[in-house]
């Protein structure tokens, strides 16, 4: 039995309460299906309609004939394999850089007492007050000065400057039992060895959360890749979709939208329990 909520179990057990409960439950299921699942259904089936059928009013609920041509055309005409690959490279690199550099920095700040550690941490936390989007223009100029435009490094390196993830790691490292780490050092393990063999295996949950945040952030970002990738062949799928959306047949565009959504939705469905739990837990604790 779960804990008591707004409505008492006694009220729910009464015949009237039961009737109200089942009515509400059914309407919420229908509402959710209409609001969240139906648009997705409309997109997936819209891509399989003929160009003629998709423009028809009133629209057909189920395609008259199922065309897979839209998906094939999107895959070839819009060079989706290239753009998907670009996105994968950008996301994977950002994830790897963030995991290595943020973990190392968080470990140093948490366990190695660097000189000026407090000042450095303060400087990192201060960036939380500066929303990333408000700084895109000077950041763009810096990336341009470094000659990193149209280079995946333009995604990878700025991704490391993520104060939220770094602080998440640091706070987790702070809570690790001191005696375990000290015991390892007495046994002669160096700092790197302690990090690799003791700290990281103990930190699997937080590393999972940071990994998901890192991947989703790159996959969902739009303004930054729009700025730094002017070269069409280097663009991730989101930017390419918008650039190509003007001069492409509607069914092909919709098919490309479906394909662009598949990786993250699949990731979510596989890890949904962890992701939902992570958001619920992370949210209330800040």
């Amino acid at each position, binding site marked *: 039995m779960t804990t008591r909520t707004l409505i008492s179990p006694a009220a729910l057990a009464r015949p009237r309460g039961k009737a109200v409960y089942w009515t509400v439950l059914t309407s919420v299921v229908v509402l959710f299906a209409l609001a969240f699942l139906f648009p997705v259904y409309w997109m997936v089936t819209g891509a399989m309609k003929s160009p003629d059928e998709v423009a028809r009013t009133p629209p057909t609920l189920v395609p008259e004939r199922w065309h897979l041509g839209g998906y094939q055309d999107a895959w070839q005409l819009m060079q989706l394999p290239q753009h998907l690959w670009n996105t994968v490279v950008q996301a994977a690199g950002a994830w790897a850089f963030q995991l290595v550099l943020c973990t190392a920095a968080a470990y140093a700040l948490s366990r190695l007492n660097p000189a000026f550690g407090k000042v450095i941490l303060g400087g990192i936390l201060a960036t939380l007050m500066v929303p990333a989007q408000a700084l895109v223009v000077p950041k763009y100029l*810096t990336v341009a000065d470094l000659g990193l435009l149209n280079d995946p490094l333009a995604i990878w390196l700025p991704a490391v400057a993520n104060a939220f993830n770094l602080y998440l790691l640091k706070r987790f490292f702070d809570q690790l039992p001191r005696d375990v780490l000290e015991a390892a050092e007495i046994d002669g393990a160096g700092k790197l060895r302690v990090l690799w063999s003791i700290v990281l295996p103990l930190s699997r949950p937080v590393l999972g959360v940071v990994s998901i945040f890192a991947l989703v952030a790159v996959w969902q970002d739009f303004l930054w890749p729009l700025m730094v990738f002017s070269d069409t062949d280097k663009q991730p799928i989101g930017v390419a979709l918008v650039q190509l959306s003007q001069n492409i047949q509607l069914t092909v565009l919709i098919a490309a939208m479906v394909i662009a959504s598949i990786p993250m939705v699949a990731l979510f469905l596989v890890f949904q329990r962890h992701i939902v739990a992570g958001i619920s837990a992370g949210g*209330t604790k800040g």
Partner: protein
Amino acid sequence: MTKTAERLHEVAVPPIQAPTPAGDRRRRRLADQARAHGFLLGGLLCFALFSWYPAIRAVVIAFQKYTPGSDPEWVGTANFTRVWHDPEFAAAWRNTFTFTLLALLIGFAIPFVMALVLNELRHAKAFFRVVVYLPVMIPPVVSALLWKWFYDPGAGLANEALRLLHLPTSNWSNGTDTALVSLVIVATWATMGGTVLIYLAALQSIPGELYEAAELDGANLLQRIRHVTIPQTRFAILMLMLLQIIATMQVFTEPFVITGGGPENATVTVLYLIYKYAFLYNDFGGACALSVMLLLLLGAFSAGYLRLTRSAEGDLG
């Protein structure tokens, strides 16, 4: 001599060639420091290049005439006055504030009520949580393109739904009055999953006895919401509100993809204007002047948010 005396002697007169304990400690401390800063180096370099330096640079360029490739020129507050007198400036701020306000009314009230209802339901819990979060995982560009298609005045689903209900059709994102609301609907649809999940978690932490006590005192449903639910989750409500304000003040993807800022500047936002100054007008000074204004405003909200989470946690660094 006894052994103790020997040892005493050794301590009193240390051999000259051996390092002093103090020097030894200092050298070890230096090595430790070098190692600690070695671990920090990569991360700090990224923060310096892509966070700290751009923040300073935004302020500097805001007072310069800046074109990539040529030497910057100090122009005082000319950028600010030029941007200020741009007719789009007022429109962009008005739209951004309206968008934020509407997002609070629609995009905050709906997930709030939804979480309240979901918390009472004892069936299909996993289904609700997955389905409500599904749109969050769809790339924002795809959500925007999808709703652009729904809002299509011809074969769009939105007008089709209105016709089905025998309601008058709307111009949606193509009408000057309705464009902004249409974008708020898209943003709400795409992001409310996160708000619902976080608020649900807050609701679950309310002790059941409080509701029982309230009920014994004769409080009805609405009174229980007002006197138990809201006060008990006040921290989560305030935090989610601030996060939402910060996020919606930076809205860009929806207006860029769906309306292109139109019709008649009805959906130009501040961030969109910053983008236009930099990449359409090639006026980086103006773009940075605008960025600084946005930065100051958002910084105030973020400071409020940080202070809130900090006081809740009771520790920092």
